[in-house]
């Protein structure tokens, strides 16, 4: 018999920004865990792992790198069905760019689940959107990997993947072990019942890993291990001499079309000057 599949999902806690109030299923505000939440794409990655677990049987290890409160996302991962939770936390890791982050996460995978079959990451995070950590882990671990995966299917040790890449729908194959990054296009993540969440806070243990546990040189992590440096931040000011229109919607629209027919009508290729007037 084949050994039990070992899956690893890397999940990130991101700020619950006000722009994310919807649970697509219930249409309600999702605020069950303080102000942090699992990054949406990471949640989809976890869902993809859970589907594999349901189909083939698997052990899922969820790994997150962050400060102590990031434990919350591991609890939520437990509630969804993850089996193990690893919190990689060390003050020396603060300020990491994607190069340093991908090193730490790769090392954490090797430490916590050396015989992994498949690593599933979200394709990008809502708080930075770089989409770089997944591909960089593929390099660090020197395994086959595919980004922006919508669907996946396992056939023995062969993983068949589908993705949309620059207007091409691609079907790809690779042997395990490997890494995929998952989009938010398919398989909406399962709902976590509150009861499950409460159990998750008490039932399962989270292992913690520090830089020392990972046997990593602090010089290679955190801000020190990050080749990119921010030298300046500024907010661009675009104050135009603009025309302000107020009043009833109908009046505004008529005025808009009458006065700016050249601009708007020109662009849409239609004459929108008022019929009566133009006669």
């Amino acid at each position, binding site marked *: 018999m084949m050994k039990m599949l070992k899956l690893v999902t890397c999940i990130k806690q991101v700020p619950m*920004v006000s*722009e*994310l109030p*919807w649970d*697509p299923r219930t249409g309600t505000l999702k605020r069950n865990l303080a102000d942090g939440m699992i990054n949406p794409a990471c949640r989809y990655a976890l869902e993809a792992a859970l589907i594999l677990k349901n189909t083939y049987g698997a052990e899922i290890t969820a790994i997150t790198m962050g400060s102590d409160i990031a434990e919350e996302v591991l609890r939520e991962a437990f509630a969804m069905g993850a089996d193990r939770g690893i919190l990689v936390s060390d003050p020396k890791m603060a300020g990491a760019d*994607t*190069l340093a982050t*991908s090193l730490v996460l790769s090392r954490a995978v090797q430490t916590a689940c050396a015989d992994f079959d498949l690593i599933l990451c979200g394709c*990008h995070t809502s*708080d*930075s*959107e770089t*989409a*770089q*950590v997944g591909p*960089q882990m*593929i390099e660090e671990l020197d395994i*086959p990997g*595919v980004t922006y995966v919508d669907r996946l299917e396992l056939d023995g040790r062969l993983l068949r993947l589908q993705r*949309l*890449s*620059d*207007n*091409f*729908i*691609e*079907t*790809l*194959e*690779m042997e395990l072990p490997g890494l995929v990054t998952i989009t938010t*296009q398919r398989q909406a993540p399962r709902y976590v019942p509150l009861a499950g969440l409460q159990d998750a806070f008490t039932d399962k243990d989270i292992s913690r890993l520090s830089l020392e546990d990972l046997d990593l040189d602090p010089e290679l992590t955190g801000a020190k291990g*990050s*080749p*990119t*440096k921010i*030298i*300046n931040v*500024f*907010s*661009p000011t*675009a104050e*135009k001499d*603009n025309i*302000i*229109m*107020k009043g009833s*919607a*109908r009046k505004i*629209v*008529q005025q*808009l*079309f009458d006065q*700016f027919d050249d*601009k*708007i009508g020109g*662009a*849409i290729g239609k*004459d929108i000057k*008022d*019929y009566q007037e133009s006669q």
Partner: protein
Amino acid sequence: MKDSIKEIWVFGDYRNYFQNRVTLQLLSRATELAKMLQAKVCAVVFGDQVDEWVNEYIAHGADRVLVIDHPDLKNYKIETYVNLMIRLIGKQRPEIILVGATNFGREFAPRIAKRLKTGLSADCVDLDINDEGLLVQTAPSFGGNILAQIITPECKPQMATVRPGTFQEIPHNYERTGEIVRIPMPADLPKERVHLIFSERSPQRSQRIEEAKVVICGGRGMGSKKKFKKLTELGELMNAEIGATRPVVYANWIEADALIGQAGKHIKPKVLFAFGISGAIQHTAAINNAEFIIAVNKNPNAPMMAMADIAIVADANQVCTAMIKELKVRIRG
């Protein structure tokens, strides 16, 4: 070893050529950076029978093109492309590498940066050279309503990705000449472990939003999915493409490919309508090239209103509905 003239490399991403002109846009910016740095612009092209692109890149500003032309490179292959690029970089040591933030570019660039242990900034909205000759990479910064300037002071090459539409291409000049360096396909590449089994073009939207003359963008101020859909009706009347902000995409009011912004598409319409959009930097970074902006917002102080040529202080839905009504009357035949 090569002589000491610095080089700025642009990855030749030619897939979807007619829609995806990001390589040409990068070449354009690279030629400006090259002047500041007294460097040469070099395009790197991998593929099968790629002369067409080679000539195109020279016509658009490349001084040199490194080409590996081989039947095995017919389709983009991630591991093979990374390995080839790493070898070329090792031999030629470019100062800067710019990659278009296409799906492939976003997979390719981070892997190159990782292998070389250098920095990479994603989705830059501007690129410059500072007094020390370093590449200044400007990008929206971590969630805040600010832009950050990033440098990679200690590692080479300095790398950045840029979304299509961020820079304007320069018109081609087929009289331009450039050096074409043909490099044989190495025989000892590691075997590709990711296999493309099947690939087909996805059904395209009729008029791509990046090229559209009129774009209607809707934000969370539209209120609901149902009300947001009204914009589609308006769009049909105006031959306009519909774009959206991220909360709208997250709420599933429209598909993800309508996203305009740092994490989505850059647009340059002649006329842009912004309905119920606050104007966060991650969104507005992608609409700087719009010629004429009409914003509708209940809040006259929203940043989007300050960017607009016409700022309409009103309910976005009412204005949308009124526009539909009015256009139906005005447009005849």
